[in-house]
């Protein structure tokens, strides 16, 4: 077990190295002039040159790369070229909003998705067909459209919830909840529908299997058959869906963050990449890789916990 975790962590490190190296060189190959971007259209040639030296951009590319790598290994991700803010500090500001949204939306999607999926699978008939059609439709609606409608109705017209911004949990738990409610719903709907369809399919398969009939014939209450045994067996594929959803949610959060002006990592990545703020982009790439590796590891461990069959492999 320990070996398994260590192996996964080691491959995660390799992944971080490869992706950050690729990002570094790809961003440098675009032929952009970040210094002119930083200083704007009226800075003089001398000012541009001075800034170039200050940022170390007059060094050969390979030197710049090893300087960055050397500091990164020691935990120093450098400073933003545009605001001079330490990248570490910037990440610690932009991660909480995005993680609040993404984790919140996954919890919402997993709970309600499972509930709807199980209900559909057990009840079948008209309810099942209705839920299937609804899920497919919801999946087809782009999240940002839902976000725009939610913002317009609940924030602008009814003024029940804030239209823009994010409040940190540590500042005020109530305001935090209010600030992420609409974004979480907008982000969750698509995943919720996918999970519902996934759970429904697995549950129908499992409920027809022999062991369920055996359990029932032994006189186990239906509730115990469904929750303790069938659901556990059906949960495997759904967990994989959830881990994929996590990655999808991080990338979809870019657009939801935009709609609600939430200062998350997606918005930051978008802004920094478009103005060529290399240190920030690299920092965000690293953090995203870490998140993906950790979530996959956790899901694998959870799979083993739920389903003993997986542990052998």
């Amino acid at each position, binding site marked *: 077990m320990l070996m398994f975790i260590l192996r996964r962590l080691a491959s995660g490190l390799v992944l971080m190295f490869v992706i950050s190296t690729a990002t570094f060189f790809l961003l440098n190959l*675009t*032929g*952009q*002039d*970040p210094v*002119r*971007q*930083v*200083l*704007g*259209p*009226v*800075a*003089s*040639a001398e*000012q*541009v040159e*001075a800034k170039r030296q*200050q940022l170390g951009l007059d060094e050969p590319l390979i030197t710049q790369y090893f300087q960055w790598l050397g500091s990164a290994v020691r935990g120093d991700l450098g*400073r*933003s070229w*545009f*605001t*001079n*803010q330490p990248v570490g*500090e*910037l990440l610690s*500001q*932009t991660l909480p909003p995005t993680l609040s949204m993404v984790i919140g939306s996954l919890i919402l999607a997993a709970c309600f998705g499972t509930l709807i999926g199980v209900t559909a699978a057990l009840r079948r008939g008209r309810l099942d067909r209705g839920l299937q*059609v*609804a899920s497919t*439709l919801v999946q087809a*609606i782009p999240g940002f459209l839902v976000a*725009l*409608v939610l*913002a*317009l*109705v609940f*924030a*602008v*017209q*009814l*003024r029940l919830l*804030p*239209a*823009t*911004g994010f409040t940190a949990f540590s*500042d005020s738990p109530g305001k935090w909840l209010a600030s992420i409610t609409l974004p979480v719903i907008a982000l969750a709907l698509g995943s919720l529908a996918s999970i519902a369809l996934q759970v429904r399919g697995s549950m129908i398969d499992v409920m027809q299997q022999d062991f369920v009939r055996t359990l029932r014939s032994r006189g186990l209450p239906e509730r115990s058959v469904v929750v303790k045994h069938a659901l556990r067996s059906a949960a495997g594929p759904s967990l994989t869906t959830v881990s994929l959803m996590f990655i999808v949610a991080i990338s979809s959060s870019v657009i939801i*963050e*935009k*709609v*609600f*002006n939430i*200062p998350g990592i997606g*918005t*930051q990545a*978008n*802004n920094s990449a478009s*103005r*060529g703020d290399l240190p920030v982009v690299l920092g965000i790439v690293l953090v995203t890789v870490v998140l993906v590796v950790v979530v996959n590891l956790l899901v694998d461990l959870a799979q083993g916990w739920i389903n003993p069959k997986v542990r052998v492999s």
Partner: protein
Amino acid sequence: MRKLVGIAAVTAVLALTACNGSSPGGSTAPTELDIAAIAPPESFSPGNFGTGPTTQFLQPVYDSLFRNTNEGEPAENIVTKWSYDDARTKLSLTIREGVKFTDGTPLDAAAVKANLDSARKGTGEAGGQLRFIQEVTVTDATNLMVTLSAPDPSLVPNLGGTAGVLASPKALGTAELDTTPVGSGPYILDAAKSQTGIKYVYTRNADYWNAKDFPFDTVEVTVFNDNNAILNALRAGEADFAVVTDKDSNSLKSAGLNIQTSPAYTTSGLYLFDRKGSLVPALAEPKVRQAINMALDRDAIHAKVFGGKGKATSQVFSSTSDAFIPDLDKKYPFDVDAAKKLLADAGYANGFTLPMPDVSPVYPDQQAAVTEALTAIGVTPQYQPVNGQTFISDLLAGKYPAAIFGLNSPRPWDFAQIALTPESLWNPFHVSDPTVVDLINKAQGETGDAQTETFRQLNTYLVEQAWFAPYIQSDNVFASTTEITVTPQRYSTLPPLWGFTASKK
């Protein structure tokens, strides 16, 4: 599905019954000002920032040496008395007594010197505005002398802007100052509630010497990344002020917001950089440049491309400045036949090809209008694909003989410095015209009416020689809640912080 129908129905009902977001009753004046900004400040270190949008973040925490009036004239602030010598190269300043930075350091003549010395080495536009300063000498605790290498007519008003902000000498030169300002201004940045690059919360500086000019207890400046989010914030009452686009102004007005326009101090047009014909020989011929000016239907561009906002003109100097001459706009009436005749006189009866950067992704309507104008007189625009990140550097390197562009044009002297001298950054082909150089040098040593007259002569010469083919001096559109009143300032693209007051009920 049912849920969606429900949402749609609720939206429809709400849209029909919307009560225009009337503010909740109560006559108390607002104590908080929420400003929506579109870009974070580059830095809080003097000299390292620009002169435009960053102002919104600097004015709460920093005092400037001068405070410009609504008419853009410098007036006292930290400096209480100032005077130039006859050669206008020595500026003596007297500093207000008893002002302290929020870290307790006294704001004296030495502190002013430290700031000017640090700022003029800065890499931002504000630092560039101090380039004529040669030396700063402290005379005593409240007096100092600024020696210039040559007269700078804009220095004092610029010291009333971002070039003249004062940070605590203890913080100058530290990396922390880039993100955490230490000033002597009316407010203090509340670091615990603020997030660099995202949201800046300012609370009152209890010891401020001039609190009466700043009625709000809290000022919040939030950076927005999306236009639609700005509109939602305004409509939901979460933002009190934002610069919006012209096309959104009507819907905001019907949602109960105040809409006002103010000059953006940007001259948009076809910039004919290659006036000596290095890349396109035809552009060296004044008649060709005049023909291009006559091919532009400025009124149509004003109405259709700019929605009737701003001012249609063939002059680059701001229409709010005294150098602007209304009659000069009659010089190039829209006349395709006359333009063709001018081209033929210049020896280009069959036209020529004009390579330009393709700005259609950003300014599709402007590019369409210019294409139509040029094609009508037989000039073929040859648009070349542009990399957004290198666009400015390419223009500055003289890669394009002409470009559809907008350049900042506040005071005439500033525009001359940016675009007219042979060394100017935005004179990428370094065109040197003795008349232009002489007039700029003359204006440099002059003041008042004599200087205005020289700038008017320069303006007339530029229009007659068709140095540019401008079409619009655009406007900014400001949206604000009815709770506040906003007063713009001449030569500033954004209203100053003291231009925001609670509305009288």
